[in-house]
């Protein structure tokens, strides 16, 4: 387990170099884009970007002169991870168009399929489907009806 005291560690030289390089680019970008700001508005982001630049250069130097280590990242299925990211992004972008209920139902089904590693039976699919429908109904009632949060109804359905 990653939380154990003696969790396996890996060489971090390569990953630290990559991280430091990206951070240097971000810090330089933050400095570049602060050119047109007033002094009052730019002094803080410039100071932070300069500090970020210094820390990133220090990390880069350390990655060349020392042998830094870091905890071994958790292994697992890349496909399912990418799938989850795709579903979450699609869900967040489609809320406005499909509306809360339709987008959430589709996303919940997709996420359930992604997270399930065993075989599907009709009984299990029905049970999971009912539980997910119950969860969506509960939160819809809590937010839309009790807390009066105007959940998106979906631009697509409005025009129909």
């Amino acid at each position: 387990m990653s939380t154990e005291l003696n969790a396996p560690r890996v060489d971090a030289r390569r990953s630290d170099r990559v991280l430091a390089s990206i951070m240097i680019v971000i810090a330089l970008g933050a400095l570049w884009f602060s050119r047109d700001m007033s002094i009052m508005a730019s002094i803080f982001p410039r100071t932070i970007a300069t500090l970020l630049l210094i820390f990133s250069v220090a990390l880069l130097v350390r990655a060349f002169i020392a042998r830094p280590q870091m905890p071994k990242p958790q292994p697992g299925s890349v496909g399912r991870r990418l799938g989850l990211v795709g579903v979450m992004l699609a869900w967040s972008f489609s809320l406005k168009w499909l509306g809360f209920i339709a987008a959430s139902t589709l996303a919940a089904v997709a996420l359930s399929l992604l997270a399930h590693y065993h075989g599907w039976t009709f009984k299990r699919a029905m049970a999971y489907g009912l539980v997910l429908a119950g969860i969506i109904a509960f939160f819809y009632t809590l937010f839309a009806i009790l807390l009066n949060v105007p959940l998106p109804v979906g631009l697509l359905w409005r025009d129909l």
Partner: protein
Amino acid sequence: METLGFMAAAFSPMNLLLAVLGVAAGIFIGALPGLSATMAVAVLVPVTFGMPTEAALIMLGAIYTGAIYGGSYAAILVNTPGTPSAIATTFDGYPMAQRGDGDLAVTLSTLSSMVGGLVGALALLTLAPLLAQIALKFGPVEYFWLAIFGLTLISALSEGSTLKGFIGAGIGLLLSTVGVAVVGADIRYAFGSQFLLGGVEIISALIGLYCIPVLIDLVATPSAHLEPPEEGRGVRFNESLGLMWRSKFNSLRSAVIGTIVAILPGAGGSIASLVSYSEARRTSPRHERFGHGEPDGVIATESANNATVGGGFIPTFVLGIPGTPPDAVILGALLVQGFRTGPEMFTTNANVTYTFIGGLFIATLLMLPLGLLIGRYAFKSIVSIPKALLVPSIAFMTVIGTYAIRNNPFDVVVMVVLGVLGWVLSRYGIKASPIVLGLILGPIAEQGFVQGYLMGNASGSVLTVFFGRPISMAIIALTLIAVFYPLWRARRDRIVKNSNEEPRHEH
């Protein structure tokens, strides 16, 4: 005697019922990622408008107390702090839950929250006017250094290298500058996007950075989310009492730190638990276990963050300056009820104030039975839910919780993007906590920094303004200790370890 009489008024059946309802509602709302204590209080304020002032305040105080405590559930069981003040609870609470000690962590959190809450309420009862004077001595520069102190602490405390912690804090601070500038009102880093004008919403970022990486790793393997607890060991109350007794000084010290830090308006809540955690780790004989599921870590943070409830009311009542965001909402409710804050809260309106403090004591005590009951089922259900239901349920809460903050679908997009970014950064050794705290403390730090800079320019010496004031100097000293003490301690441990190993090599 008169004070006791006012406090006893809180024990009326109606007030007791309101306190029970408030604590239960607070725990429930606080436990849901995305629904903060501020939101819990804000959403339920209208319910109290028709009530007598004492009853309204008791209910709001109970909701606030319950929500701050409830934030620990999500921190321990899902690695997502329900409220920013529960960030440090994830450090040891989640590792405890991962190894099957989630029940112990929740019970410890309940007991510590109760101790912290009682100390905070006691300070409110006895020391309010005195402590409020300390808050008045903090100017913009002191707030700037306080924010830097908080960021230094979290960078040094985060698992992994301190350098990466500082880079994480830098990312958070830069993210906090997106949108309209705190001073000067320029539009910064919005790249022409209308949605970025409002900046990165803190709670959305908090949910994304903590929750999305958990979800990404949950679907990656078929193994269980948390180790299931052993059968028939209940809530492990006696074991928790034993651990609390062992850590009694840790718990009390953390509660006192929480109370004192909370009197500083704005910055208090999120820094209090970090300072307590840092102190607990520094003084603990088991300091190397912190961050890997050490019960003392949970005790320190939870004692501190519930002490901020009572502590935060001190500047709210005495000075009219809300100590924490939920205090601001409660202050609004007080104004609606026709009350003015200030010294008269403890003289002319003493009946209302002391009845409220009595209600706060009741709410804090009620956390024990209610928390143990709810916590037991929360842990069991999280452990027993299959991943195919757990993943969509958590994802659902993150999406709806984020959307509900500003009713803006773009916040959901930002939450997901930041979450994915957080997962990638965690693979490179940068944890979520420094980024989130950078985002939270960024505006406080910037305001203090720019105002201090202007004051320095006006007086002719910027350096004197930043480095010449006693409180600033004390905070700078603490910041330096926070950076260098862990390095010194690690070096000392290494020398001791080497000297212990040397005689063995000689044989």
